[in-house]
């Protein structure tokens, strides 16, 4: 029985090759998008799920509340560590660690040097009590007890001591920064499962107890927070989270800063469960540079996957039901020969499953292509191998069965309802089948495609707007070079500046801090008194010498620049001026801010400009003359871009002479500005792909429907042709039906996408207009694509000889 089912299935699939191909490809595209995005989500959701007692492990984090905003930090004040170690109850282990970047490490035996060793932390033995490593040498019980000890991971040990067994590595000496001499006392295997804990060198905290240079490791100030100081705890076996939180609250209360609290600044210590470590945007994982998953991004991706999958399935259902009427005769015969409805439905489901399976196999191939497309989103270490994990396989099988049911059950049911008499008498069984459901589904598909198109265009428009909007200062042909962080004196840098000044292609120079717009922020709170009332203002500071404003084309509206860098004088921007209650720049000159009981006069007002991405509004800002954060900014002669590489060469040569040890790194301001929007660029890329795929799937679906309709109406077309209809008239007649669907989809898609894009644009302080022409353009383009797809098929049908089509009936 099942053998003949299988045979029938293969033969009927083969008989309508085009149809089956469209069907399978449509579904496999949807499936592959779902696979790829599915494993991306799975990947990020399965970090650090293997630790023993993982529900009892927490990170202590700091949340701050200021009048302006909330802040989140993964770093804690160092004394909190000691307090919890000494007095807490309900906690089994308190494990602090400090992320630390050493410049170099020397392996004593061969005097081999390694620069910038990565993944180095300073920890104590408690760390290994919470996180259970496999010990290849040494033991977790004695690890890091004493000063000047280091535990290495297996891979790090192999790097430093190639060819040695773990036991042989024990006892060797490493020297950090030429002065810190430590002994290897343990080797651990790295976690094999997905984990954010990728540390490879663990130095004992004791080593730094009396160190001046690394003083902060035993800092005693409750006020300062460094994000590299992180604290994990493991609660006792009752997991008394509430009790621990109460102790943290008490500590936060005892050690609060009364002065700041009066101004509305509050701080609390909270527990972050281990499982939220990987996905929490507020705190980040350990440092900011490593790959971070964002729940938002995953959510967006999930949405796109869902839609593409839905499109593929709809296609599948649509084409299957359309195709099914062709099977009516077979169904009729089977029924007269005694087949039950159930048997027919099972047979049909079986056929659908074969197609689904084929699509699944094909989609594995597509998925490997897609993985490359999504490369920007994909964390290192993710590959299709993840598909092999049992959870994923189970999900896949369930998905396939679900699709089979969705796509096969309805047509199966419809078919099995056919009255055999009607079928066999060649009465049209299709009379009742107006394909209403199919039309709804097609409209739905096109709504999705249309929304994707509109979103792509609008995101593109917004990015274009952001990149090209005047920031309020000059961004073209300006570059900057940061001074080396070590071994530089201001004098040396000034001398370097003078040399660069002599390069003919360089027009203007300035030594300053950051460029006017950057990702970094330095600010301070100041007070302003007027008529006995105190206003507290958080303002952003901009540092530079007397040429800075001129170089960046920032106009001074009134007043003068600060006299020199030994006196504190502010040039404020218009926003700040308005914030302290002035409308006229002339009047604000001479007013004073109070900072730490020192008065700072306002000597000038500069034009407003954007200090960071256009997501943000313009902040109140003050410019001070200060060259401490020495960065050399300079502009090129704008009209001779072809000579820039030459000029850069010259500058680099000079750099090598002044700072032979340091790498030369030149940044262009306009590139920096573009980088502000890398997230948006990625969204745009993703959307483009999603749009392309959505259009492709929808058009495949449309093509299928057109084929079906034209086949159904072959006789009608023949009769009309005999009666004298022209090809064009026939096209109009048949195309109208489909264009109506596409048009209707457009009407639905416009408000949906308008609403969605409004939400997306809310993140931006500066937004492009949701112009009507974008909607119109996307509507028209989809219409044209649809029309092309429809016409191909209709022309072919309309051109067939009517004698032929009438005879076949």
């Amino acid at each position: 029985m099942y053998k003949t089912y299988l045979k029938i299935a293969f033969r009927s699939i083969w008989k309508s090759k085009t149809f089956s191909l469209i069907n399978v490809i449509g579904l496999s595209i949807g499936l592959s998008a779902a696979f790829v995005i599915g494993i991306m989500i799975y990947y990020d959701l399965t970090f650090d799920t293997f630790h023993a007692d993982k529900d009892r492990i927490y990170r202590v984090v700091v949340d701050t509340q200021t009048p302006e905003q909330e802040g989140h930090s993964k770093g804690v004040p160092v004394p909190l560590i000691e307090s919890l170690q000494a007095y807490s109850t309900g906690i089994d282990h308190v494990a602090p660690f400090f992320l630390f970047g050493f410049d170099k490490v020397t392996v004593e035996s061969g005097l081999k040097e390694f620069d910038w060793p990565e993944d180095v932390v300073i920890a104590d033995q408690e760390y290994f009590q919470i996180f259970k490593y496999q010990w290849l040498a040494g033991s977790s019980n004695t690890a890091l007890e004493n000063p000047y000890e280091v535990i290495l991971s297996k891979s790090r040990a192999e790097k430093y001591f190639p060819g040695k067994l773990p036991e042989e590595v024990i006892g060797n000496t490493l020297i950090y920064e030429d002065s810190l001499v430590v002994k290897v006392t343990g080797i651990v295997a790295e976690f094999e499962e997905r984990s954010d804990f990728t540390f490879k060198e663990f130095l004992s905290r004791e080593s730094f107890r009396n160190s001046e240079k690394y003083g902060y490791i035993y800092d005693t100030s409750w006020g300062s927070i460094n994000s590299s100081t992180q604290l994990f705890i493991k609660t006792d076996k009752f997991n008394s989270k509430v009790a621990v939180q109460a102790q943290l609250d008490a500590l936060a209360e005892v050690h609060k800063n009364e002065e700041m609290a009066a101004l509305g600044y509050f701080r609390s210590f909270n527990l972050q469960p281990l499982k939220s470590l990987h996905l929490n945007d507020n705190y980040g994982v350990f440092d900011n540079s490593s790959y971070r998953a964002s729940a938002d991004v995953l959510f967006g991706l999930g949405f796109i996957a869902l839609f593409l999958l839905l499109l593929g399935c709809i296609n599948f259902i649509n084409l299957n039901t359309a195709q099914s009427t062709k099977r009516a005769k077979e169904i009729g015969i089977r029924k007269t020969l005694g087949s039950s409805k159930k048997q027919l439905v099972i047979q049909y489901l079986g056929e659908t499953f074969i197609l689904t399976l084929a699509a699944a196999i094909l989609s594995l191939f597509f998925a490997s292509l897609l993985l490359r497309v999504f490369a920007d989103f994909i964390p290192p270490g993710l590959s299709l191998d993840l598909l092999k994990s049992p959870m994923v396989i189970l999900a896949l099988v369930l998905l396939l069965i679900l699709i089979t049911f969705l796509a096969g059950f309805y047509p199966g049911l419809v078919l099995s309802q056919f009255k055999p008499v009607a079928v066999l008498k060649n009465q049209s069984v299709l009379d009742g089948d107006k394909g209403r459901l199919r039309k709804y589904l097609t409209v739905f598909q096109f709504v999705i495609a249309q929304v994707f198109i509109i979103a792509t265009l609008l995101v593109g428009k917004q990015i274009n707007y952001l990149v090209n909007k005047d920031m309020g200062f000059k961004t073209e042909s300006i570059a900057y070079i940061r001074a080396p962080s070590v071994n530089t004196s201001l004098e040396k840098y000034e001398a370097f500046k003078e040399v660069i000044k002599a390069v003919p292609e360089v027009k203007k120079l300035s030594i300053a801090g950051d460029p006017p717009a950057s990702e970094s922020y330095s600010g301070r709170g100041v007070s302003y008194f007027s008529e006995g009332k105190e206003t507290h203002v958080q303002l952003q500071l901009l540092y530079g010498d007397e040429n800075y404003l001129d170089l960046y084309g920032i106009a001074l509206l009134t007043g003068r620049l600060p006299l020199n860098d030994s006196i504190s004088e502010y040039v404020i921007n218009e926003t700040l001026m308005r914030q302290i209650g002035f409308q006229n720049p002339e009047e604000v000159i001479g007013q004073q801010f109070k900072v730490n009981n020192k008065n700072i006069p306002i000597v000038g007002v500069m034009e407003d400009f954007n200090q960071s991405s256009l997501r943000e509004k313009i902040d109140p800002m003050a410019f001070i003359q200060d060259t401490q954060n020495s960065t050399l900014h300079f502009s090129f002669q704008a009209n001779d871009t072809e000579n820039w590489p030459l000029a850069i060469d010259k500058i680099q040569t000079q750099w090598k002479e002044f700072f032979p040890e340091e790498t030369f790194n030149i940044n262009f301001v306009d590139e920096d500005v573009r980088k502000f929007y890398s997230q948006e660029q990625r969204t745009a890329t993703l959307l483009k792909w999603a749009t392309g795929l959505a259009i492709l799937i929808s058009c495949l679906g449309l093509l299928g429907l057109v084929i079906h309709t034209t086949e159904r109406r072959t006789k009608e077309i023949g009769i009309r042709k005999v009666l004298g209809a022209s090809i064009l008239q026939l096209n109009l007649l048949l195309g109208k039906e489909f264009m109506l669907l596409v048009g209707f989809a457009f009407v639905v898609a416009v408000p949906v996408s308008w609403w969605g894009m409004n939400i997306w644009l809310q993140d931006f302080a500066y937004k492009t207009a949701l112009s009507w022409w974008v909607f119109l353009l996307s509507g028209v383009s989809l219409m044209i694509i649809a029309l092309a797809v429809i016409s191909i098929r209709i022309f072919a049908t309309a051109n067939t000889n009517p004698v032929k089509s009438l005879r076949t009936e």
Partner: protein
Amino acid sequence: MLIQLSNIFKWVQQGGRRVFLLKDINLEVEEGAFISIMGPSGSGKSTLLNVIGMLDVFDEGKYNFMDEPVHQLKEKHRSALYKESIGFVFQAYHLIDELTVYENLEMPLLYKKFVGSERKALVADMLDRFNMVGKKDLFPSQLSGGQQQLVGVARALIGKPKLILADEPTGNLNSKQGEEIMALFKQLNKEGVTIIQVTHSEKNAAYGNKVIHLLDGRMEKK
């Protein structure tokens, strides 16, 4: 008594009026009979045949098939009943295009849950009897009309039915092929199979031992 129809009515509603397809049909068919139903187009021949074949329902009256009251049976029982006892032959053959001759013949047996070896034997018998062994792997489209109808008859016979219902079995065939099929029916009838056929042709009707004339859904008294 194989078939007993009494006071069978069948109608459809059209514009508020009842249009009768079958009107007061009374018919008794003994086992071993060969009956021809004749009448002009639209007289209800095929409808009557479908009612007898249980493919179609009627609105009023009683129908006993092998002393089972068909009008009272549930769909499942009815389906089992005709699966066991009735074979159909159609004007347009109605073979499944995707299956070979062999597979087409095998299909009714699959629905009757015959085991593999039995199926093989029965199909081989049939192929042998109809001289189609050489054609068993061909698809219907590769056969002539007469050959396709032979397969159709063979398929109807393979389940060893008591009754064969044939709806214009020769309608799509040329006269020579038609004669062959009718001769085959005659032969089958001699072997004890009851046959009811619908036909337009007096000549074909003459093969049977009783002719029923229908006009506007009514049996004409002779």
